[in-house]
């Protein structure tokens, strides 16, 4: 475990408020007040942290991003796919999500549409340009791999605090880009049926309540994968978005990275290069099977 010097502690204490003040919150969404944590009860404490972390990341309306996923085989060989991604936020109901592949050329235009349904299974469609067909897909289960990556659908969907048994473990630190990051370490046991894991360990940054790292333990209780989230950027002085997510499978030595570029959060806060006016937000009509077919 990392021990820090007095100087480092002082610097962190000083730096905290400085950074927070640096960028003004222009998102129009206030930070929710930090609750008084119940540190006497590890379960309640854990749930509080997870719930607060979720609340902190609500209210951004929509998101558009370009991304690159790179799949590394155990021998280091890799394959790269680029995609664009749109999300329509529906707090409490489940978001709508459209992913469209850009490259390699042979899969350009393949689109996956997901309607998350809070509390029940999601609706999925896939469009293949090579046969110009949209196919509804059902039951592609949570534990299935997402497009052959090390991420499963379960890993990609948001952590719903209500669906886990939480336990606060400890305050500790992670090393990030040579710096020491204070984190809150939580253990979470999924209570839903269709899971690939016995439990996960989530590291939230103490300051921003971002998910910095998640460790996934397989059904046998053996550590299976580690997901690291880094290269954070603060959007509109309010929401943190990661530009790099890596998922490493410790048992097969395979790895997937998701790099994001050009993230737009709440489109109405941007100006259109064509009209010179504020861009409209995404509408729900864009998240239909018709919109997939390009």
């Amino acid at each position, binding site marked *: 475990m990392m021990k820090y010097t007095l100087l480092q502690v002082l610097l962190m204490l000083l730096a905290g408020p400085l950074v927070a003040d640096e960028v003004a919150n222009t998102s129009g969404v206030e930070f929710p007040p930090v609750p008084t944590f119940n540190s006497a009860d590890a379960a309640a404490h854990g749930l509080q942290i997870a719930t607060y972390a979720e609340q902190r990341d609500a209210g951004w309306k929509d998101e558009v991003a370009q991304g690159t996923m790179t799949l590394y085989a155990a021998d280091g060989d890799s394959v790269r796919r680029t995609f664009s991604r749109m999300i329509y936020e529906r707090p409490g109901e489940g978001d709508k999500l459209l992913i469209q*592949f850009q490259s390699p*050329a042979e899969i350009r235009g*393949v689109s996956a549409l997901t309607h998350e349904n809070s509390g029940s299974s999601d609706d999925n469609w*896939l469009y293949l340009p*090579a046969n110009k067909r949209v196919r509804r897909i059902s*039951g592609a*289960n949570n534990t299935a791999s997402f497009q*052959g990556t090390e991420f499963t659908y379960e890993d990609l969907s948001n952590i719903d605090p209500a669906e886990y048994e939480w336990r606060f473990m400890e305050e500790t630190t992670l090393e990030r880009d040579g710096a020491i990051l204070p984190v809150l370490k939580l253990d979470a046991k999924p209570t839903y049926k269709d899971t690939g894991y016995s439990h996960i360990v989530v590291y939230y940054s103490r300051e921003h309540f971002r998910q910095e790292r998640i460790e996934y333990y397989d059904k046998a209780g053996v550590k299976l994968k580690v997901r690291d989230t880094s290269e954070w950027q603060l959007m509109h002085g309010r929401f943190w978005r990661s530009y790099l997510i890596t998922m490493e499978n410790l048992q097969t030595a395979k790895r997937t990275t998701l790099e994001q570029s050009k993230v737009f959060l709440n489109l109405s806060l941007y100006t259109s290069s*064509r009209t010179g006016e504020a861009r409209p937000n995404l509408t729900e009509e864009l998240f239909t099977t018709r919109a997939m077919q390009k």
Partner: protein
Amino acid sequence: MNLDPEASMAAPKSPTSPLVSFFYNIRWLSTALMVALILGAIASGGKRLGKFSASVAGLGGDKEAAASAPPMVFDPSMDLWFGEGDRAVTTWYEIEDRFVAEDYIVIAIEAKDEEFGAFSRESLATIMRLTEQFLKVPGVRHVRSLTYNPWIRWGSIEDDLGSEEGLIISDLVEVDPNELTDEDIIERMVAILGAERTAERIGEARLRQVIGADADFADHIGEPLLLGTILNNPGDTSVIQVQVLRPRVDEERLIEEFNGDEAAKQIAPTLYSVAQQRQSLVGLEHLLRIEQGLAVPSAQYADLLAYVEGIEDPDAQSAAGLELIDPRFNSMAGADGVELQKYDEYAERGGILVNIASGEPAPPGFTPEARSPFSYRIAGSPLFERNFEVVGMGDSKFIPLMFLVIMALLYLVFRNLAGVLVPMAVVFGSILIMVFGNFAKGDLMNNLTMMSPNMLTAVGIADAIHLVASWAALRPKFDNKKDLIMEVMQRNALPVLLTSLTTAVGFYSLTVSHLVPVQMLGTMASFGTVMAYVLSMTMVPALLSLIPHHKTQDEAKHSMVAEFFSIPRSTRFVALILGNRGKVLAGAFALVVISFAGVSRVEIDSDFRAMFPDNNPTMTAFKWVEARMGGVGDLEMVFSGPQASGTAAPSALSADEEPRLAKLQLRRVGQLQHPDEFEPLSQEEQSELQALTAKFDAWNARRIGVSTEFLATLGKFEQRLRNEMAVPTSDLAIVTDFISPLDTLRKINQVQNKNKASAYRVPRESDVGPELREPRLYFDEWSEQWAMTPGQSGANLIAQYYLQYESGARPGESLTTQLSADRMQFRVQGRIEQATSMDHLRAINRIQAIALEEFPSISGTIDADSDTHGSVADMTLSGKTLLFARTSDLFATGFLQSMSIALLAITLLIGIVFRSVRLALISLIPNLLPIMLPLSVFGLLGVPLDGPAILVSSVALGVCVDDTIHFFTKYARGRRNGYAPQEALVQTMHESGAAMTITTVILVIGFGTLLLSDFSPNFQMGALAGVMIALAWLFDFVVTMAVLSFAGSYNVTVKVPAKAEAAAA
């Protein structure tokens, strides 16, 4: 006791060389040095072994495992036998690197008596229960079973908004099987078995109630991917297929643990992964025992449970809880740190249930309460490998027995303690140095080197016996110990050196083999032989000088053996041989001819099924599973994109080039369709577009996984093989099945086409309509830019089908084990039944021949350089089965090479030592004949020999030569002392007959202990060596004698001494 008749007839004292007196004088120092060497070898070998074992066990980062690791003595990995790297071997390791390193363990469950067979509720419930438990065994990557496999189909999807048709992906059984209705069950039977087989099981009328009165059976083809793999055709035996990882160790971790120790770095990862895999197997077996009621919580289980529940720290409690349920280990530390057993485990042995840990019978009244009525068979290569190890280690239990027999024999011969203890000291000393020296060198034991102690025992005893025999014979003639011992050394130093050297050469010639274990055996045994000589010359004088000197000779103890070779009997025998020497030589010549004819027909063949006794449980289960489900052995066909030799592989577009090409293409198409929106391409940009397109095309041409041409040809090739596999008399009849991404593409094509049975095929170019082949431009609102969907082709459709499949598959079902991410490597996994290695090679060669002759475009036959249109792919065959089958060939070529080398070296040595070309050439006959004759019997009878067995020839050669050398030494001395050839022969027989006979008997017994082995190659080895050594003894007395009489005395007429004539009369 008198074994050395020389002592009784010749002047006892030879002139002592200064070397002998020097060695005699330093005997205590040299003995101390040797003891130090032995102890040093034990210490350094033991230390290295301990450190190595701890490092290996800790490779996964488990410090506790590292600390408590038992020393790893045995290397059970099969990789050891693969020979030196040629293409099949490198392909094997590439498969491990590129895809996933895993093995399959299959658990077969028979539900014959049930109405729905394997689909009965109880069978499904059992399969589901076991599947869920197996998934929780550490090291298990994936499980595929009747209840847990992707059931991909077209159907109606209901949700809040109504129903919509689409692809449904689910497990075949998602709910508690007891809740399934008969209709549900029949629907699932049809999905896997198809309509026809289901009708055979439950009757057509019953089936039609579910699928409809006018349903066409041809529309319900079942699931080809699962049928024959996890379910047999009649539908009553199903298999749970458990994918068990051989975990990887990354390079950094290896360097960290072993630093510059290259030998350790080489074998450690395999040992680690084999050990981990073995633990997973133990876990699976434990769960099966619980299922069968053969594992019940022990008396201490409740204590352990209470201890775990009482731990306050939640992390520690959860860790202890995991340890308690971890099926791989049957004990854990309880409250006071003492290891407690979790379960009492029983197994049937000899008809009764015994506790596996204690070996005691189960308590009276214990009857296993099985959770289900089914019986289980477990098979797969990890079991197979373990079987080799168990049987290999089992052979070591005969070593004490061998020692006992030999000690008893020594006592019978010498009738005193020195005669027993002195040879044993030499033997133990040299074995310890050899085995621990091997550990210190960084090698472990394996199935073959496990036999080196047996071999060295024979050799070491032969050395010491000559010394002890001389000592016992000369003892009455000497007044003091010093003179006696010096005389013993004087007489024996050179002959024993020679015999040791020839034996060492015989062993060392094995190192030319291409098989690593054979090389190791050669190095170890030759080193041990040299050490046995050194010990004989240092420790034996010291030990003998500890024994009080008596000059008396007890006539009663006079050896029967020595008396047998009395002068009169020897004279008669020599006369008999010489009188018939024409016949003897003609006979020997005939035997030589027969031997050559026979040996040239020897076939080296191995059959794993025949290597173990009939009641070996692993092999019984294997045969059972194979009889119902087909082969368990692997057969790998790896296709890769063609690459012109000598050129660098074309590289893919870089992360910058890819979007650049897309942009240029967009502008080119955009210019044509919306000229006002797009700037025309400049001259430079046009050539850039051309260059990028050319680079992409060169790279893309190797991506066979999306090539319709490759896949169509491969489909035909696969069908061609299947047709031949169906013919029972064909070489391919032992091949059971192939799976590859072709099956996945067929399935996805079928469901994309609404489950039509006719769409169960690989996509074709014509599946992409002309309207889709043109690029489509559109304005993308959200990036506020023009975008383009490129024109589509068959390759796009295939690439998109893969993506579609992988979006729904569990990680364990993903294509990554069959298709490389860049789609350039395409793996076809076949299954092949156990058979002889020759049958395996015939099948593999047949596949190769069909590929080369009928499908040259995908087998790399067409040179990519000269005909770029022709070659679509290269093909390489590999797999454990193939690599093993080839070891037979490697044994055969190794045999020829090492025999030639040993024979040449030994003949040269004899020529130099006896300064006679003639003697050297003569020695070929008694040296070669005893080896060739037994081998030729196998050749003439057409019985194949096991690979390892033939190895023994080089070893036996080294030992056979010993006899010849003793014979020649005595004969040469006799001739030098002025005896006529015939008299010299009589003296030779009289002098060395007893010693040669005793050593032969001891050697035969030493190798004979291998006859107790359960492992047939070891048995064959023991039998062959015994016969060869016995024949060598016989031929020395018969053939060598006849040949010597010719060679040594062209002009000497044979005159039988009067005494002998009288005796003969």
